């Protein structure tokens, strides 16, 4: 499911009505804004934030600016998108790095907001960037929270510092000493979840902050939170003067109005969003991209980033050549599939493509990740020669492959048919750049 799908769909619907009209009158803008308001509120943007947003956008939409535009609808979309972008902070803000290591990152937030998992994701992401992170377990209240962090740390091969249910202030101080001793350059402190009105626990956070003076204090917020987002973020920010926000669970179909609310209420940048259950599912937050996503314009930029991470340059060039010469083989097919997996799977990639947003639900039903795994098994049951020259696969070879992969012959036939269709599809994409996407969709459904 695409991020922010709900809101994007609604706004698209509103503006498709606008497109059918000529120039916009004040009354029409008012009407459109009424629908924008409902859409935003249903997306859990805070009531007051919506009020302010509508006022600003209406003001900008009415009058001269709109007359200059080619199509009024485009102009309104642009104004809404720009305003959304501004509201969410304009540009991506990176993590601060302390000039004197270690950089200390302290996580805080409500219970169940996803701090522990996010700590793990952040540690892994930093490790990939060549840092040496240390995870610190300071959640001494929730049963097994320390175990959870230890299991996470083990799975990504990152040290976890813990002192059982000792005082978290003391534990974090010792953790920093430990990091200094073992030359670990980033310390991530996972604190216990707490309600913003729990004075005793909020005091504990203040003490940890005072003791270790963190480089970053990240407020972790569940993107499914409702109107309450404003109270929560205000209270945490008042107590700790947080340096940034991380949004979790953005991979549901949550419309994520929280991004707008939090940013505009406490004025601190959203630095990360966490988009899946795998430990690699962490993304930097880009307000401009997110605004486009809200409007259903897809998120090509994120996709490109991901692709760069997953695929090396040489491979891409080689693949391009093969596309051009139409000499794509089953070996390439497997390589492609592996790359897709590295990018978070086919569904995640599709959800980021523009124009697919609305159709993703139907698509999702037709794509079965298990089927992809089965296809891989079939290909791996082929001989090297067969993979490179799919044309030689005759009846008896199909029989043998089916047996090897533990599937029916019909499954093998289907895969070969699909493979031939994909080749056909590439030819078409090459010849016909416009409408290529639509064809692609049709073929995938078929």
């Amino acid at each position, binding site marked *: *499911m695409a991020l922010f799908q*709900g809101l994007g769909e609604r706004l698209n619907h509103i503006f498709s009505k606008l497109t059918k009209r000529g120039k916009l009158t004040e009354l029409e803008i008012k009407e459109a804004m009424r629908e924008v308001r*409902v859409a935003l*509120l*249903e*997306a*859990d943007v805070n*009531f007051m934030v919506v009020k302010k947003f509508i006022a600003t956008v209406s003001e900008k939409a009415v009058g001269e600016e709109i007359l200059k535009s080619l199509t009024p609808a485009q102009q309104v979309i642009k104004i809404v998108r720009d305003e959304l972008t501004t509201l969410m902070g304009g540009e991506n803000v990176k993590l601060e790095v302390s000039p004197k290591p270690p950089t200390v990152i302290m996580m805080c937030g*409500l*219970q*169940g*907001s*996803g701090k522990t998992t996010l700590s793990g994701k952040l540690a892994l992401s930093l490790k990939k960037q060549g840092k040496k992170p240390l995870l610190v377990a300071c959640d001494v*209240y*929730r*049963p*097994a*929270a320390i*175990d*959870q962090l*230890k*299991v*996470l740390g083990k*799975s990504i091969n990152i040290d976890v510092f813990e002192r059982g249910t000792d005082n978290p202030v003391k534990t974090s101080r010792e953790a920093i000493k430990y990091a200094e001793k073992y030359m670990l350059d980033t310390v991530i402190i996972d604190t216990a979840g707490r*309600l*913003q*009105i729990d004075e005793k626990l909020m005091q504990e956070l203040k003490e940890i902050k005072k003791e270790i003076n963190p480089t970053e204090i990240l407020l972790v917020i*569940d993107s*499914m*939170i*409702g*109107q*309450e*987002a404003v*109270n*929560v973020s205000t209270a945490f920010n008042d107590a700790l003067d947080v340096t940034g926000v991380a949004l979790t*669970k953005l*991979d*549901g*179909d*949550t*419309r994520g*109005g*929280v991004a707008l609310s939090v940013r505009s209420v406490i004025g601190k940048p959203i630095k990360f969003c966490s988009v899946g*259950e795998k430990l690699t599912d962490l993304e930097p937050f880009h307000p401009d991209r997110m605004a486009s996503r809200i409007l259903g314009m897809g998120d090509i930029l994120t996709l490109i980033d991901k692709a760069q991470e997953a695929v090396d340059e040489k491979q891409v060039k080689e693949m391009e050549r093969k596309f051009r010469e139409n000499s794509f083989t089953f070996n390439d097919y497997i390589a492609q599939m592996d790359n897709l997996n590295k990018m978070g799977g086919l569904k995640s990639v599709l959800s980021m493509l523009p124009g697919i947003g609305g159709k993703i639900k139907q698509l*999702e*039903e037709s794509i079965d*990740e298990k089927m992809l795994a089965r296809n891989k098994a079939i290909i791996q049951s082929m001989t090297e020669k067969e993979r490179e020259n799919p044309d030689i696969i005759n009846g008896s070879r199909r029989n043998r492959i089916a047996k090897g992969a533990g599937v029916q012959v019909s499954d093998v036939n289907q895969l070969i048919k699909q493979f031939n269709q994909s080749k056909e599809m590439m030819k078409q994409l090459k010849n016909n750049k416009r409408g290529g996407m639509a064809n692609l969709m049709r073929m995938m459904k078929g």
Partner: protein
Amino acid sequence: MGIFGNFFKKIKYAFTKNELNDDFYDELEQTLISSDMGVITSEDIIEEFRAEVKKRMIKDVDNAQKVLREILIDKLKFDEVEFSYPMIITVVGVNGVGKTTSIAKMANYFSKLKKNVMLVAGDTFRAAATEQLDEWATRLKLKIVKQGEGADSASVVFDGISSMKAKKADVLIVDTAGRLHTKVNLMKELEKINNVAHREYPEAKHLNFIVLDASIGQNSLAQVEAFKQSVDIDGIILTKLDGTAKGGVAYPIVKELNVPIVFTGFGETINDLSKFNVEEFVDKILM
């Protein structure tokens, strides 16, 4: 006390020419939306309220507030969910809503009723989920059935039911993996758990409770719909009501599921769970 009076007191001049004025309705809408009731539900309720005020020719604040309170209470009123033993309660919900804690609290609730309670660690997905439930089982001195991380949750449930029968336990509470409702495969796993439970112990009472966090917004509707497609939901556990969130999202959800809120959770300790009290809940929304 007059907790409930506060909302009406905020609006000084609710009546103009013997009619509730627009300022009043604007303020009311804001109050309802701020409680996470959602725009559509809020508008429906306001409309109903308007009609009722008109019908009864109400001209004063006191009576107006009574009417509103009645409407809000009425929408959440249901027959109580009946408990009969032996009983298997499967607890579902997305990650981080407080499933495991609610299970422990419920176990404690039934233990206090002198029932023999057992737990099943069916969340084999999240790191250390089993340990967390295990820890609660130790604290509450309850028997727990578990397998390792990554085990098939339906098979853990199978073990749980065998053990429940052998020990003649009254209540079996099954923890399941928190999942985002958009993950089709994980939702199918829930179906399987339910099938196994019904097949292995058809004569027991089977209940599926969904745990919802009071602070979540309109997205929870999509969650609930998705869960509803996989399993029959019999009741709602609304958690984290100890925060400042009002939990107004309960309105659209109860409407969608047509099932009652059974329990509410309001704190960290094991006793912070009670049967749902609709009057208290409504008064908090209008506070």
